[in-house]
Protein backbone atom coordinates (compact mmCIF):
# COMPACT_ATOMS: atom_id res chain seq x y z
CA UNK A 1 0.00 0.00 0.00
CA UNK A 2 1.36 3.43 -0.92
CA UNK A 3 1.60 6.08 1.77
CA UNK A 4 -0.23 9.40 1.51
CA UNK A 5 3.09 11.08 2.18
CA UNK A 6 6.55 9.61 2.30
CA UNK A 7 9.48 11.91 3.05
CA UNK A 8 12.94 10.30 3.00
CA UNK A 9 16.30 11.85 3.82
CA UNK A 10 14.94 15.33 3.23
CA UNK A 11 17.31 18.27 3.71
CA UNK A 12 16.86 21.87 2.70
CA UNK A 13 18.91 25.03 2.87
CA UNK A 14 18.21 28.62 1.86
CA UNK A 15 21.68 29.66 0.73
CA UNK A 16 23.89 29.15 3.77
CA UNK A 17 20.94 28.76 6.10
CA UNK A 18 20.42 25.08 6.85
CA UNK A 19 16.73 24.64 7.66
CA UNK A 20 15.84 20.94 7.41
CA UNK A 21 18.24 18.08 7.96
CA UNK A 22 17.74 14.45 6.98
CA UNK A 23 14.02 14.15 7.77
CA UNK A 24 12.07 10.89 7.48
CA UNK A 25 8.32 11.31 7.82
CA UNK A 26 5.48 9.03 6.82
CA UNK A 27 1.74 9.70 6.74
CA UNK A 28 -0.45 6.67 6.01
CA UNK A 29 -3.78 7.01 4.21
CA UNK A 30 -6.36 8.24 6.68
CA UNK A 31 -3.76 8.95 9.35
CA UNK A 32 -3.56 12.16 11.40
CA UNK A 33 0.07 13.12 11.90
CA UNK A 34 1.31 16.19 13.78
CA UNK A 35 4.62 17.95 13.83
CA UNK A 36 5.59 19.96 16.89
CA UNK A 37 8.71 22.04 16.84
CA UNK A 38 10.12 25.34 18.01
CA UNK A 39 9.38 28.54 16.13
CA UNK A 40 11.62 29.02 13.14
CA UNK A 41 12.66 25.36 13.00
CA UNK A 42 11.45 24.91 9.43
CA UNK A 43 7.94 23.49 9.68
CA UNK A 44 6.39 25.83 7.14
CA UNK A 45 9.37 25.22 4.88
CA UNK A 46 8.55 21.50 4.96
CA UNK A 47 5.07 22.31 3.68
CA UNK A 48 6.43 24.50 0.92
CA UNK A 49 8.62 21.59 -0.17
CA UNK A 50 5.73 19.10 -0.04
CA UNK A 51 3.60 21.59 -1.99
CA UNK A 52 6.29 21.97 -4.63
CA UNK A 53 7.01 25.71 -4.38
CA UNK A 54 10.63 24.97 -3.42
CA UNK A 55 12.78 22.10 -4.61
CA UNK A 56 14.58 20.28 -1.77
CA UNK A 57 18.34 20.45 -1.58
CA UNK A 58 18.45 16.70 -0.94
CA UNK A 59 16.09 13.79 -0.34
CA UNK A 60 12.78 12.65 -1.78
CA UNK A 61 9.10 13.46 -1.24
CA UNK A 62 6.35 11.19 -2.52
CA UNK A 63 2.65 11.96 -2.37
CA UNK A 64 0.44 8.91 -2.95
CA UNK A 65 3.36 7.25 -4.69
CA UNK A 66 3.97 10.22 -6.97
CA UNK A 67 6.98 12.52 -6.83
CA UNK A 68 5.96 15.76 -5.09
CA UNK A 69 4.87 18.58 -7.38
CA UNK A 70 2.42 21.44 -7.29
CA UNK A 71 -1.28 20.72 -7.11
CA UNK A 72 -1.21 17.46 -5.13
CA UNK A 73 -2.15 18.63 -1.63
CA UNK A 74 -4.95 20.45 0.12
CA UNK A 75 -3.13 23.23 1.91
CA UNK A 76 -4.08 25.55 4.71
CA UNK A 77 -1.41 28.22 5.18
CA UNK A 78 -0.29 29.67 8.49
CA UNK A 79 -2.21 32.89 7.74
CA UNK A 80 -5.65 32.39 6.18
CA UNK A 81 -4.50 34.11 2.94
CA UNK A 82 -8.02 34.77 1.70
CA UNK A 83 -8.62 37.05 -1.27
CA UNK A 84 -10.14 40.26 0.10
CA UNK A 85 -12.04 40.96 -3.12
CA UNK A 86 -13.76 37.58 -3.20
CA UNK A 87 -16.83 36.63 -1.22
CA UNK A 88 -16.45 33.81 1.29
CA UNK A 89 -18.00 31.17 -0.97
CA UNK A 90 -15.79 32.26 -3.86
CA UNK A 91 -12.78 31.97 -1.58
CA UNK A 92 -13.80 28.48 -0.51
CA UNK A 93 -13.91 27.22 -4.09
CA UNK A 94 -10.59 28.77 -5.15
CA UNK A 95 -8.63 25.51 -5.13
CA UNK A 96 -11.41 23.75 -7.06
CA UNK A 97 -11.46 26.59 -9.56
CA UNK A 98 -7.73 26.19 -10.14
CA UNK A 99 -8.23 22.48 -10.76
CA UNK A 100 -11.18 22.98 -13.08
CA UNK A 101 -14.72 23.13 -11.80
CA UNK A 102 -16.00 25.07 -8.81
CA UNK A 103 -18.90 23.56 -6.89
CA UNK A 104 -20.62 26.55 -5.28
CA UNK A 105 -23.55 24.48 -4.01
CA UNK A 106 -21.25 22.16 -2.06
CA UNK A 107 -19.34 25.14 -0.72
CA UNK A 108 -22.55 26.68 0.63
CA UNK A 109 -23.55 23.40 2.21
CA UNK A 110 -20.20 23.11 3.97
CA UNK A 111 -20.28 26.72 5.10
CA UNK A 112 -23.50 26.05 6.96
CA UNK A 113 -22.04 22.82 8.39
CA UNK A 114 -19.22 24.81 9.97
CA UNK A 115 -21.49 27.47 11.38
CA UNK A 116 -20.92 30.06 8.68
CA UNK A 117 -24.33 30.07 7.02
CA UNK A 118 -25.28 33.60 6.23
CA UNK A 119 -21.64 34.45 5.55
CA UNK A 120 -21.36 32.98 2.06
CA UNK A 121 -21.80 36.39 0.41
CA UNK A 122 -19.74 38.36 2.91
CA UNK A 123 -16.16 39.46 2.38
CA UNK A 124 -13.20 38.22 4.48
CA UNK A 125 -12.78 41.49 6.39
CA UNK A 126 -16.29 41.05 7.74
CA UNK A 127 -15.30 37.81 9.51
CA UNK A 128 -13.46 37.22 12.78
CA UNK A 129 -10.03 35.58 12.76
CA UNK A 130 -11.46 32.21 13.81
CA UNK A 131 -14.09 32.34 11.07
CA UNK A 132 -11.44 33.18 8.48
CA UNK A 133 -9.46 30.15 9.58
CA UNK A 134 -12.51 27.96 9.15
CA UNK A 135 -12.87 29.34 5.64
CA UNK A 136 -9.21 28.58 4.88
CA UNK A 137 -9.73 25.08 6.27
CA UNK A 138 -12.79 24.49 4.08
CA UNK A 139 -10.86 25.72 1.07
CA UNK A 140 -8.24 23.04 1.77
CA UNK A 141 -10.81 20.36 2.52
CA UNK A 142 -12.85 21.03 -0.62
CA UNK A 143 -9.78 20.88 -2.82
CA UNK A 144 -10.55 17.15 -2.64
CA UNK A 145 -6.95 16.06 -2.24
CA UNK A 146 -6.02 12.88 -0.36
CA UNK A 147 -3.47 14.72 1.73
CA UNK A 148 -4.28 17.78 3.82
CA UNK A 149 -1.42 19.93 5.06
CA UNK A 150 -2.51 22.27 7.85
CA UNK A 151 0.04 24.83 9.03
CA UNK A 152 -0.72 25.96 12.60
CA UNK A 153 -4.38 26.45 11.80
CA UNK A 154 -5.38 27.42 15.34
CA UNK A 155 -2.36 29.35 16.56
CA UNK A 156 -4.10 32.71 16.34
CA UNK A 157 -7.05 31.67 18.47
CA UNK A 158 -7.81 32.09 22.16
CA UNK A 159 -7.96 28.94 24.31
CA UNK A 160 -11.76 28.73 24.26
CA UNK A 161 -12.15 29.02 20.52
CA UNK A 162 -9.26 26.66 20.05
CA UNK A 163 -11.03 23.95 22.09
CA UNK A 164 -14.13 24.45 20.01
CA UNK A 165 -12.13 24.16 16.82
CA UNK A 166 -10.49 20.91 18.01
CA UNK A 167 -13.89 19.36 18.57
CA UNK A 168 -14.99 20.65 15.21
CA UNK A 169 -11.92 19.41 13.33
CA UNK A 170 -12.11 15.95 14.93
CA UNK A 171 -15.77 15.64 13.97
CA UNK A 172 -15.12 16.56 10.37
CA UNK A 173 -12.04 14.40 10.13
CA UNK A 174 -13.74 11.35 11.65
CA UNK A 175 -16.55 11.70 9.12
CA UNK A 176 -14.19 12.32 6.16
CA UNK A 177 -11.03 10.37 6.87
CA UNK A 178 -8.14 11.96 5.01
CA UNK A 179 -4.45 11.83 5.58
CA UNK A 180 -3.55 14.96 7.57
CA UNK A 181 -0.20 16.54 8.27
CA UNK A 182 -0.71 19.11 10.99
CA UNK A 183 1.84 21.61 12.27
CA UNK A 184 1.60 23.15 15.72
CA UNK A 185 3.59 24.62 18.60
CA UNK A 186 1.11 23.16 21.01
CA UNK A 187 1.95 19.71 22.41
CA UNK A 188 -1.43 19.14 23.95
CA UNK A 189 -3.13 19.94 20.69
CA UNK A 190 -0.87 17.52 18.82
CA UNK A 191 -1.54 14.68 21.28
CA UNK A 192 -5.26 15.32 21.35
CA UNK A 193 -5.70 15.24 17.59
CA UNK A 194 -3.07 12.85 16.21
CA UNK A 195 -2.25 9.21 15.65
CA UNK A 196 1.43 10.01 15.36
CA UNK A 197 3.47 13.01 16.56
CA UNK A 198 6.89 14.01 15.25
CA UNK A 199 8.98 16.29 17.45
CA UNK A 200 11.37 18.59 15.61
CA UNK A 201 14.57 20.06 17.01
CA UNK A 202 15.33 23.73 16.54
CA UNK A 203 16.95 24.77 13.26
CA UNK A 204 18.23 22.84 11.41
CA UNK A 205 15.22 20.68 12.09
CA UNK A 206 15.73 16.97 12.66
CA UNK A 207 13.21 14.48 14.01
CA UNK A 208 14.17 14.00 17.66
CA UNK A 209 11.22 11.80 18.54
CA UNK A 210 8.38 9.97 16.83
CA UNK A 211 5.51 9.19 19.19
CA UNK A 212 2.61 6.86 18.46
CA UNK A 213 -0.34 8.23 20.41
CA UNK A 214 -1.97 5.38 22.33
CA UNK A 215 -5.50 6.74 22.67
CA UNK A 216 -8.46 5.36 20.68
CA UNK A 217 -10.98 7.01 18.40
CA UNK A 218 -13.36 8.71 18.49
CA UNK A 219 -11.41 10.76 20.95
CA UNK A 220 -12.98 12.99 23.58
CA UNK A 221 -11.55 16.25 24.91
CA UNK A 222 -11.27 14.79 28.43
CA UNK A 223 -8.48 12.48 27.28
CA UNK A 224 -6.18 15.33 28.33
CA UNK A 225 -6.85 14.37 31.97
CA UNK A 226 -5.81 10.75 31.46
CA UNK A 227 -2.61 10.04 33.51
CA UNK A 228 -0.95 8.49 30.43
CA UNK A 229 -1.72 11.66 28.47
CA UNK A 230 -0.26 13.83 31.20
CA UNK A 231 2.93 11.74 31.29
CA UNK A 232 3.31 11.85 27.53
CA UNK A 233 2.77 15.58 27.47
CA UNK A 234 5.40 16.03 30.18
CA UNK A 235 7.92 13.94 28.24
CA UNK A 236 7.40 15.85 24.98
CA UNK A 237 7.54 19.20 26.77
CA UNK A 238 10.91 18.25 28.26
CA UNK A 239 12.13 17.13 24.86
CA UNK A 240 11.13 20.40 23.25
CA UNK A 241 12.44 22.69 25.95
CA UNK A 242 15.59 20.60 26.35
CA UNK A 243 15.27 20.34 30.15
CA UNK A 244 16.45 17.09 31.79
CA UNK A 245 13.86 14.54 32.89
Amino acid at each position, binding site marked *: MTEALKVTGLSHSFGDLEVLKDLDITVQKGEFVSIVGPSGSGKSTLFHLVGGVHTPTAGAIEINGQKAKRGLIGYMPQQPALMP*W*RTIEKNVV*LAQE*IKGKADIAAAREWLSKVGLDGFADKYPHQLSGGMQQRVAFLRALLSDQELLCLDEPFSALDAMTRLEMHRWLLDIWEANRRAVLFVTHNIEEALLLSDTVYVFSSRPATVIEKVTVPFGRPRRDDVVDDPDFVKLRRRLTDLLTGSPR
Partner: protein
Amino acid sequence: MTSVKRALPPAITVLLLIAGWQLYTTLSGIDTWLLPSPSDILTAAADQREALARHTLATAELTLYGFGAGVATGLFVAVVLHLLPGVRVAIYPLLVISQNVPTIAIAPLLVVWLGFGIAPKLVVIILVCFFPVAVATLDGLGRSDALIADYMLMSGANRRQLFTKLQWPHALPTMFSGLKIAATYSVLGAIIAEWLGSDKGIGQYMIIQKSAFRADRLFVAIAIVVILALVVFGLVVLLEKLTVKGRRRD
Protein backbone atom coordinates in the same frame (compact mmCIF):
# COMPACT_ATOMS: atom_id res chain seq x y z
CA MET B 1 -26.43 62.24 3.82
CA THR B 2 -22.87 62.68 5.07
CA SER B 3 -21.66 63.52 1.55
CA VAL B 4 -24.21 66.34 1.42
CA LYS B 5 -22.94 67.55 4.78
CA ARG B 6 -19.37 67.43 3.58
CA ALA B 7 -20.19 69.25 0.34
CA LEU B 8 -21.84 72.13 2.15
CA PRO B 9 -18.80 74.05 3.53
CA PRO B 10 -16.88 74.19 0.20
CA ALA B 11 -20.10 75.16 -1.60
CA ILE B 12 -20.54 78.06 0.79
CA THR B 13 -16.92 79.08 0.22
CA VAL B 14 -17.46 79.14 -3.56
CA LEU B 15 -20.63 81.22 -3.21
CA LEU B 16 -18.83 83.73 -0.96
CA LEU B 17 -15.93 83.99 -3.43
CA ILE B 18 -18.29 84.67 -6.32
CA ALA B 19 -20.19 87.26 -4.30
CA GLY B 20 -16.93 89.00 -3.35
CA TRP B 21 -15.82 88.95 -6.98
CA GLN B 22 -19.08 90.48 -8.16
CA LEU B 23 -18.85 93.16 -5.47
CA TYR B 24 -15.24 94.01 -6.33
CA THR B 25 -15.84 94.34 -10.09
CA THR B 26 -18.93 96.51 -9.54
CA LEU B 27 -17.33 98.81 -6.96
CA SER B 28 -13.93 99.20 -8.64
CA GLY B 29 -15.33 99.66 -12.15
CA ILE B 30 -12.51 97.54 -13.59
CA ASP B 31 -12.63 97.03 -17.37
CA THR B 32 -14.60 93.98 -18.50
CA TRP B 33 -11.88 92.88 -20.94
CA LEU B 34 -9.47 92.69 -17.99
CA LEU B 35 -11.68 91.11 -15.34
CA PRO B 36 -15.32 90.42 -16.17
CA SER B 37 -17.79 90.08 -13.30
CA PRO B 38 -19.57 86.78 -12.70
CA SER B 39 -22.74 88.23 -14.17
CA ASP B 40 -20.81 89.29 -17.32
CA ILE B 41 -19.57 85.75 -17.61
CA LEU B 42 -23.07 84.31 -17.24
CA THR B 43 -24.32 86.68 -19.93
CA ALA B 44 -21.49 85.64 -22.22
CA ALA B 45 -22.32 82.01 -21.63
CA ALA B 46 -25.98 82.59 -22.46
CA ASP B 47 -25.14 84.57 -25.64
CA GLN B 48 -22.75 81.95 -26.88
CA ARG B 49 -24.64 78.83 -25.83
CA GLU B 50 -25.06 77.37 -29.32
CA ALA B 51 -21.41 77.77 -30.29
CA LEU B 52 -20.34 76.59 -26.86
CA ALA B 53 -22.48 73.45 -27.05
CA ARG B 54 -20.90 72.56 -30.41
CA HIS B 55 -17.34 73.16 -29.18
CA THR B 56 -17.95 71.36 -25.89
CA LEU B 57 -19.29 68.33 -27.71
CA ALA B 58 -16.23 68.27 -29.97
CA THR B 59 -13.84 68.51 -27.04
CA ALA B 60 -15.76 65.92 -25.03
CA GLU B 61 -15.60 63.52 -27.94
CA LEU B 62 -11.88 64.07 -28.45
CA THR B 63 -11.28 63.69 -24.70
CA LEU B 64 -13.13 60.40 -24.48
CA TYR B 65 -11.39 58.90 -27.52
CA GLY B 66 -8.03 60.07 -26.27
CA PHE B 67 -8.68 58.91 -22.74
CA GLY B 68 -9.81 55.50 -23.97
CA ALA B 69 -6.77 55.14 -26.20
CA GLY B 70 -4.45 56.40 -23.45
CA VAL B 71 -5.84 53.99 -20.88
CA ALA B 72 -5.65 51.09 -23.33
CA THR B 73 -2.02 51.97 -24.08
CA GLY B 74 -1.22 52.30 -20.37
CA LEU B 75 -2.78 48.94 -19.50
CA PHE B 76 -1.07 47.26 -22.42
CA VAL B 77 2.33 48.64 -21.39
CA ALA B 78 1.74 47.63 -17.76
CA VAL B 79 0.74 44.06 -18.59
CA VAL B 80 3.59 43.56 -21.06
CA LEU B 81 6.20 44.95 -18.66
CA HIS B 82 4.75 42.86 -15.84
CA LEU B 83 4.75 39.60 -17.77
CA LEU B 84 8.17 40.16 -19.35
CA PRO B 85 10.60 41.22 -16.61
CA GLY B 86 13.45 41.31 -19.15
CA VAL B 87 11.64 43.94 -21.20
CA ARG B 88 10.72 45.73 -18.02
CA VAL B 89 14.27 46.35 -16.83
CA ALA B 90 15.21 47.53 -20.33
CA ILE B 91 12.29 49.91 -20.81
CA TYR B 92 10.92 51.08 -17.48
CA PRO B 93 13.74 53.56 -16.64
CA LEU B 94 13.49 55.08 -20.12
CA LEU B 95 9.77 55.43 -19.67
CA VAL B 96 10.28 57.37 -16.46
CA ILE B 97 12.89 59.64 -18.05
CA SER B 98 10.64 60.23 -21.07
CA GLN B 99 8.13 61.89 -18.75
CA ASN B 100 10.52 64.82 -18.39
CA VAL B 101 9.85 65.73 -22.00
CA PRO B 102 6.99 68.26 -21.88
CA THR B 103 4.19 67.19 -24.17
CA ILE B 104 3.70 70.80 -25.30
CA ALA B 105 7.26 70.75 -26.63
CA ILE B 106 6.77 67.76 -28.89
CA ALA B 107 3.22 68.59 -29.93
CA PRO B 108 4.27 70.79 -32.91
CA LEU B 109 6.48 67.95 -34.11
CA LEU B 110 3.46 65.64 -34.03
CA VAL B 111 1.62 68.07 -36.30
CA VAL B 112 4.56 68.04 -38.71
CA TRP B 113 4.51 64.23 -38.77
CA LEU B 114 0.81 63.51 -38.59
CA GLY B 115 -0.88 66.59 -40.08
CA PHE B 116 -3.89 68.46 -38.73
CA GLY B 117 -6.38 65.60 -38.46
CA ILE B 118 -7.41 63.75 -35.34
CA ALA B 119 -4.24 61.58 -35.23
CA PRO B 120 -1.78 64.08 -33.66
CA LYS B 121 -4.46 65.16 -31.18
CA LEU B 122 -5.06 61.60 -30.05
CA VAL B 123 -1.32 61.04 -29.70
CA VAL B 124 -1.01 64.10 -27.46
CA ILE B 125 -3.74 62.81 -25.15
CA ILE B 126 -2.31 59.28 -25.16
CA LEU B 127 1.08 60.70 -24.22
CA VAL B 128 -0.27 62.52 -21.18
CA CYS B 129 -2.64 59.71 -20.10
CA PHE B 130 -0.82 56.42 -20.51
CA PHE B 131 1.97 57.01 -18.03
CA PRO B 132 -0.01 57.35 -14.78
CA VAL B 133 -2.12 54.34 -15.78
CA ALA B 134 0.90 52.22 -16.71
CA VAL B 135 2.86 53.03 -13.56
CA ALA B 136 -0.07 52.56 -11.16
CA THR B 137 -1.16 49.29 -12.77
CA LEU B 138 2.35 47.90 -12.96
CA ASP B 139 2.82 48.72 -9.30
CA GLY B 140 -0.42 46.99 -8.34
CA LEU B 141 0.38 43.90 -10.41
CA GLY B 142 3.76 43.55 -8.75
CA ARG B 143 2.56 43.91 -5.18
CA SER B 144 0.05 41.10 -4.84
CA ASP B 145 0.04 39.02 -1.67
CA ALA B 146 2.94 36.53 -1.70
CA LEU B 147 1.11 34.26 0.77
CA ILE B 148 -1.88 33.92 -1.55
CA ALA B 149 0.51 33.37 -4.46
CA ASP B 150 2.20 30.52 -2.56
CA TYR B 151 -1.19 29.08 -1.73
CA MET B 152 -2.25 29.16 -5.37
CA LEU B 153 1.00 27.64 -6.61
CA MET B 154 0.75 24.79 -4.11
CA SER B 155 -2.80 24.22 -5.29
CA GLY B 156 -1.47 23.82 -8.81
CA ALA B 157 -2.16 27.25 -10.32
CA ASN B 158 -0.38 28.13 -13.57
CA ARG B 159 0.92 31.55 -14.52
CA ARG B 160 -2.23 32.52 -16.33
CA GLN B 161 -4.37 31.71 -13.28
CA LEU B 162 -1.96 33.56 -11.05
CA PHE B 163 -2.42 36.61 -13.27
CA THR B 164 -6.18 36.51 -13.79
CA LYS B 165 -7.19 35.38 -10.30
CA LEU B 166 -4.61 37.14 -8.13
CA GLN B 167 -2.46 39.83 -9.73
CA TRP B 168 -5.08 41.52 -11.89
CA PRO B 169 -7.83 41.78 -9.26
CA HIS B 170 -5.22 42.90 -6.76
CA ALA B 171 -4.07 45.67 -9.12
CA LEU B 172 -7.57 47.09 -9.70
CA PRO B 173 -7.63 49.68 -6.88
CA THR B 174 -4.15 50.95 -7.76
CA MET B 175 -5.09 51.01 -11.43
CA PHE B 176 -8.05 53.20 -10.58
CA SER B 177 -5.87 55.75 -8.82
CA GLY B 178 -3.88 55.94 -12.07
CA LEU B 179 -7.10 56.27 -14.04
CA LYS B 180 -8.21 59.20 -11.89
CA ILE B 181 -5.01 61.10 -12.61
CA ALA B 182 -5.30 60.27 -16.31
CA ALA B 183 -8.92 61.45 -16.34
CA THR B 184 -7.90 64.98 -15.38
CA TYR B 185 -4.90 64.92 -17.72
CA SER B 186 -7.04 63.80 -20.65
CA VAL B 187 -9.06 67.04 -20.74
CA LEU B 188 -5.86 69.05 -20.42
CA GLY B 189 -4.40 67.02 -23.29
CA ALA B 190 -7.45 67.64 -25.44
CA ILE B 191 -7.23 71.42 -24.92
CA ILE B 192 -3.51 71.47 -25.77
CA ALA B 193 -4.22 69.34 -28.84
CA GLU B 194 -6.85 71.80 -30.01
CA TRP B 195 -4.50 74.73 -29.52
CA LEU B 196 -2.22 73.08 -32.06
CA GLY B 197 -4.65 73.70 -34.82
CA SER B 198 -8.23 72.65 -35.00
CA ASP B 199 -11.44 73.93 -36.55
CA LYS B 200 -13.51 73.14 -33.48
CA GLY B 201 -13.37 72.47 -29.77
CA ILE B 202 -13.06 74.50 -26.60
CA GLY B 203 -9.28 74.82 -27.12
CA GLN B 204 -9.77 76.40 -30.52
CA TYR B 205 -12.54 78.61 -29.12
CA MET B 206 -10.14 79.87 -26.44
CA ILE B 207 -7.52 80.83 -29.03
CA ILE B 208 -10.07 82.89 -30.95
CA GLN B 209 -11.48 84.61 -27.86
CA LYS B 210 -7.98 85.39 -26.64
CA SER B 211 -7.22 87.26 -29.87
CA ALA B 212 -10.50 89.17 -29.42
CA PHE B 213 -9.68 90.06 -25.78
CA ARG B 214 -12.91 88.46 -24.68
CA ALA B 215 -11.96 87.59 -21.10
CA ASP B 216 -15.60 86.91 -20.29
CA ARG B 217 -15.77 84.17 -22.90
CA LEU B 218 -12.40 82.79 -21.80
CA PHE B 219 -13.81 82.39 -18.30
CA VAL B 220 -16.76 80.49 -19.72
CA ALA B 221 -14.35 78.21 -21.57
CA ILE B 222 -12.33 77.61 -18.39
CA ALA B 223 -15.49 76.69 -16.50
CA ILE B 224 -16.39 74.21 -19.21
CA VAL B 225 -12.92 72.64 -19.07
CA VAL B 226 -13.27 72.21 -15.31
CA ILE B 227 -16.71 70.67 -15.65
CA LEU B 228 -15.49 68.30 -18.37
CA ALA B 229 -12.62 67.17 -16.17
CA LEU B 230 -15.00 66.59 -13.27
CA VAL B 231 -17.33 64.56 -15.47
CA VAL B 232 -14.56 62.26 -16.73
CA PHE B 233 -13.27 61.91 -13.17
CA GLY B 234 -16.78 61.10 -11.97
CA LEU B 235 -17.17 58.41 -14.62
CA VAL B 236 -13.96 56.76 -13.40
CA VAL B 237 -15.12 56.89 -9.78
CA LEU B 238 -18.44 55.35 -10.80
CA LEU B 239 -16.68 52.55 -12.64
CA GLU B 240 -14.48 51.97 -9.60
CA LYS B 241 -17.49 51.67 -7.32
CA LEU B 242 -18.95 49.07 -9.66
CA THR B 243 -15.82 46.93 -10.03
CA VAL B 244 -13.76 47.15 -6.85
CA LYS B 245 -15.39 44.98 -4.23
CA GLY B 246 -14.87 43.69 -0.76
CA ARG B 247 -12.41 46.01 0.83
CA ARG B 248 -12.83 47.99 3.97
CA ARG B 249 -13.87 51.46 2.96
CA ASP B 250 -12.37 53.98 5.29
